């Protein structure tokens, strides 16, 4: 007799647990307000990334096309996988002194692991992360970027 009671008890408990699960899924089916998906390409305009989001490394320039990079190469040394290459050139200033300035700051986005060591160790805060995250291109060569804009100069007062 006991085993028969046990048998029906098992069935009822089992069905009960199943109904409990169905209750949850059914409730979500009838509550469209809880949908969490974003319609991504459609909401491009009002999509705001967090300010610290590591999209890609950029070199901020001000309105006079000036940046802060002195070409010291600390970012290149700190980069774990050779993403950054700093090509500098020597310039003779007006008062006859020799000064090393940056020629090209090459950044290979395809190799970057976003460890933030370059941005963090830069002594003059020349590098920063942008919030851009749509990196796909058709040609791999386009991922090799030159961060300093053509014709840009070192900001005054940065050594």
């Amino acid at each position, binding site marked *: 007799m006991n085993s028969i009671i046990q048998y029906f008890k098992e069935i009822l*408990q*089992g*069905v009960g*647990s*199943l109904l*409990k*699960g169905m*209750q*949850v*899924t059914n409730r979500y089916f009838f509550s469209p307000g809880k949908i*969490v998906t974003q319609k991504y390409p459609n909401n491009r305009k009002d999509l705001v990334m*967090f300010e*610290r*989001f*590591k999209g890609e490394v950029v070199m901020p320039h001000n309105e006079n096309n000036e940046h802060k990079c002195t070409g010291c190469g600390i970012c290149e040394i*700190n980069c*774990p996988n050779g993403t950054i290459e700093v090509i500098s050139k020597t310039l003779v200033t007006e008062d006859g002194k020799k000064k090393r300035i940056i020629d090209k700051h090459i950044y290979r986005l395809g190799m970057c*692991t*976003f*460890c*933030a*060591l370059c941005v*963090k160790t830069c002594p003059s805060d020349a590098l920063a*992360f942008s919030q851009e995250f749509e990196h796909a291109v058709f040609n791999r060569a386009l991922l090799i970027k030159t961060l300093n804009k053509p014709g840009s100069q070192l900001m005054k007062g940065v050594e």
Partner: protein
Amino acid sequence: MEEIIKEVVIGEQEEYLINIGPQHPSTHGVLRLVVSLKGEIVKNVQPHIGYIHRGIEKMCESITYPQIIHLTDRMDYLSACINNEAVCLTVEKALEVEIPDRIKIIRTIMAELTRIQSHQLFWASYGMDLGGQTCYFYGLRDREKILDIFEETTGGRMIVSYNCPGGLMYDIHPNFQKRVKEFIKYFRSVLWEYDAILTGNVIFRERTIGIGKLSLVDAISYGITGPSGRASGFSCDIRKQEPYSAYDRVKFNEVMFKEGDTYHRYLARIEEMRESMNIIDQLIDNIPEGQYFVKMKPVIRLPEGEYFQRVETARGELDVFIISDGNKNPYRLKFRSPNFVNLGVLNHITKDFKIADLIAIAGSLDFVIPDIDR
């Protein structure tokens, strides 16, 4: 010494060999299991790994200590923050740097958040392994909220690279405490759904209770750590045994079961999420003011010697063993990754179960393949 190696023949002739993986929905990556079957009964499981072997230990020998951080992120990508912490703790131990409370507490909170999100993904993918696909989306839905917290503070979602030798990369975001509290409140209110859909479900219980039993003796002998080991009654929580960071100042229970079957391995993780929330509750309002990093030398050189640090990741014990020869990069760096060791037990506990149980057991050990291969 003389060499005595005997050749091994895998799989008898009459057995039915099938390959599960390297591309298979439920191996969670590129794990390949060569399974010998007798009908539906599993007779032998041979894991073939190395499809995502990147030689992290070799790479570490040629880079500096701060640079190692970004590789540890990519080992067990679900416990990225804890992996970072492990290396940082080892380096700090070697240099004998005193770490301020603020850093310790933030590290602990981040580690516990990482543990919660890892277990959420475990819950999600475990439901899917057993055929309940809705679990996956509920798990990911809740996990997104933690990833958002990570993204706001660290700039990365999974690959956070947040800890660095001597402290943290950035200070916490001003919204951090508010958002964490919101999340804890939210997650406490939806955790019952996890139980309603999976834990209490009669099909789920039938599928998991009594399946893949691992005895305490075997768990210790195989070195199974983390929730999987604790489900067998193996007290292996490093947070309790060798407290690091701020674990010595919080109260929490070590989740332990005796049964050691698939169901309890699952349950251990669900309970750990609750414990982690308790830990965060105790710490989130008590973050002291102060510096978020300790000034280190520009080039970190570890004094000659051997340094061993154990931490508890979401999957078990991660050991970092550094042999330094006084240079700026380690002479030898060994990661004892929990998944790698846990994989060793798979053949032992799946024997004579069905092929569907193999998936359930492998899922309950919660493998992250990049951590196995390193």
